[in-house]
């Protein structure tokens, strides 16, 4: 493997890690040889991959692939902010520079609609995702006729490297001292965050409030209240419902929690800030995506490692509704040779195999196979697995339509304005609804919107 950015020392350490993993698997030959698919000799490929907290796991898995198969995978490690442009440049050129593209679930529709990715069954008609692989919001399927991401009549376009759901992570020691149980409902969160804040002096509840992320952080609350952005997008009804009374309740409670229990600068908090506040021991509870767990549980990075617990997203009225998911999809571009497509698919087949996923989790990744993740649920080091599995069950990707980038921009701004007090929650939702309706109207969707909420 050749990792484009990174020192020779890092690469050497990685090779050593891969060798140790390989030795580990060799010591358990039944496990190692049982499920690894024989992918044969393949041409070298380059994968576009993001420098996210779970990257070390992916890197180790790739090193093991090279060790076991002799095939070469070069990694183009790129910060999140550069991923979309690199992926677009790859598929728009005469021939892609990358044979595997890791695409954020929120961007996939743009690539599907432009016809720039290869359906995996076009390369190998026999290929099927193992049934143990999580649905991950089904973002890697595309039904072109319906313009919707679904396996129902859709083609498989990729493989998820992770299924990124939120979870509520809390300090077990602080909650015990305050004689509090971890929150189950949205109202529990509101009460316990204030109580734990008063008892400990730490921030009671922290999550991202900055413009680019707040709509995703709010979405567990939105979906838990049975509300959504539009009426029935899967079946073509884009009537905007973001200004429903349920959405208003979800927003009012979310803002109450953030303002009452978060830092004063919550409107500027990014994911790194949230992780940093928990890792430095300044927060009693945070809402964070599962990808952050490797940073929080590493004693070298976190003073609270070993003191954390996790619960699923809060519910309302005793009903468990779908949680939002914001995962990635490893996909293969159209504009590469047949041999390169086969080589890219060979890696994907290997990657979703059980031994590969075991190597992945061992090195800090979050596996996408149930038979790898579920046995870990009772181990103290994997305290988050039960909450994660609960959130994964029926998780949905809330921004899976062509106009998502524009809608996200509108929603992010208006929610952030509500958080800083520039708009009331009612005005924020009414304004967002009118703007989102205009976006859907411009693209020819069947749309409209609910009557404005009264102030």
């Amino acid at each position, binding site marked *: 493997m050749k990792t484009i950015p990174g020192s020779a020392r890092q690469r050497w350490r990685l090779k050593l890690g891969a060798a140790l993993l390989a030795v580990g698997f060799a010591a358990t030959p039944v496990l190692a040889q049982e499920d690894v698919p024989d992918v044969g000799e393949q041409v070298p490929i380059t994968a576009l991959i993001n420098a996210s907290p779970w990257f070390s796991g992916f890197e180790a898995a790739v090193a093991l692939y090279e060790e076991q198969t002799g095939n070469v995978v070069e990694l183009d490690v790129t910060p999140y902010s550069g991923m979309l442009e690199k992926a677009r440049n790859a598929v728009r050129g005469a021939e892609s520079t990358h044979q595997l593209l890791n695409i954020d679930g929120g961007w996939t529709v743009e690539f599907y609609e432009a*016809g720039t990715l290869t359906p995996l069954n076009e390369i190998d008609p026999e290929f099927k995702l193992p049934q143990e692989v999580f649905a991950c919001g089904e973002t890697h399927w595309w039904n072109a006729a319906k313009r919707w991401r679904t396996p129902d009549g859709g083609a498989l376009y990729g493989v998820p490297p992770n299924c990124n759901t939120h979870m509520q992570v809390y300090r077990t020691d602080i909650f015990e001292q305050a004689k509090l149980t971890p929150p189950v409902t949205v109202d529990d969160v509101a009460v316990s965050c204030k109580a734990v804040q008063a008892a400990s002096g730490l921030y009671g509840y922290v999550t991202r409030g900055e*413009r680019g992320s707040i709509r995703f952080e709010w979405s567990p609350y939105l979906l838990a209240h049975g509300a959504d952005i539009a009426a029935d997008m899967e079946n073509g009804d884009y009537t905007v419902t973001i200004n429903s009374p349920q959405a208003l309740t979800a927003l009012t409670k979310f803002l109450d929690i953030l303002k009452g229990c978060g830092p004063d*600068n919550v*409107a*500027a908090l990014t994911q790194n800030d949230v992780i940093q506040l928990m890792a430095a021991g300044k927060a009693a509870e945070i809402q964070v995506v599962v990808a952050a767990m490797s940073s929080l549980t590493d004693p070298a990075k976190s003073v609270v490692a070993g003191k954390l617990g996790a619960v699923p997203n809060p519910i309302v009225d005793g009903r468990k509704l779908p949680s939002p998911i914001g995962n990635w999809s490893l996909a293969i571009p*159209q504009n590469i040779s047949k041999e390169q497509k086969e080589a890219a698919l060979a890696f994907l087949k290997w990657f979703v195999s059980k031994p590969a996923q075991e190597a992945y989790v061992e090195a800090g990744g979050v596996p996408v196979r149930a038979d790898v993740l579920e046995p870990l649920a009772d181990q103290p080091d994997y305290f988050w697995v039960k909450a994660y599995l609960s959130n994964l069950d029926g998780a949905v990707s809330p921004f899976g339509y062509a106009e998502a980038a524009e809608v996200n921009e509108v929603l992010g701004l208006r929610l*952030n*304005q509500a958080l800083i007090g520039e708009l009331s929650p009612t005005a924020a939702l009414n304004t967002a609804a009118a703007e989102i309706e205009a976006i859907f109207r411009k693209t020819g969707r069947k749309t409209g919107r609910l009557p404005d909420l009264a102030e």
Partner: protein
Amino acid sequence: MSVSSAILDDAERPVRAFRRKQLFRRVALLPAVIMLVLLTVVPMLNLFAMALAEISVSRGQTEWVFRPLANLSLLLDDTQFLTATLNTLLFTVLSVSVELVLGIGLALLAASVRRGKGWIRTVTILPILVSPVAIGAMWRLIYSYDFGPLNQILEAFGLAKVGWLSETSIALLSVVVVDVWHWTPLVFLILFAGVEGLPREVIEAARIDGANRRQLLRHIVLPLLAPAIAVAFIFRSIAAFKVFDQIVLLTGGGPGTATEVLSLRLYKVFFEQNIMGYGALLSVVTIAMILAFLLTARFSLRWLEARNA
């Protein structure tokens, strides 16, 4: 050959030589002109064409549909564009004003030092050498609400912490401070060269005539420095108008629209929302604004020169 034609030939020889030289000069310039056209004019024309179209990508091919009114309509409906324009103007005026005042002060101070001017110059320009990403990371940490040294100092004095990047009334000023820290050294460098080049005899003559420091500065030094100040002003104004990296790295345009600037709006439309035609129109509008500013600055300077003369 007759005598008359020989005389004519003699008369035409220098003319021919001059024409040959002219031709050679033009031919020699041709590669540079071709490169300029290819690298500047063609992309500009392409940008103008994009601004008149709706552009999409399908099967690896871009598809253009000529719809200039559609992009114009998006511009008229874009409330964030107006906010971004106002924020950009405010940012430019604040940062360039402070940078000029500090730059002039530093240049005069450094010029008045007898020894170690080289050291002062080297140390002062260090911020220019730091990459924007490193500057963003450094200042983000300085401004950090919970971990930053600024708030730790405030707390040590028993004062409340400040949301340097999260309060709408402060966020833009916080970014201005970073811009001033980063680019005042460039203004200093330009003006220091100007101060060092001032005619000493004029200043000495004014001193002999009894001018005090303030009079010297106001009536002699600043008017003589005016061309250098104009260069620094124009360079910095253009760059400040295009501010992008500091905003992205520090605030992302928030909170709300407090630090939304034109370049960021353009980036979001073009690269995040993938609306290429409208993004191109925003680029054209931004270029037009900078041109209008430059022309205004040029006429203002001429007017000032004429008035002083």
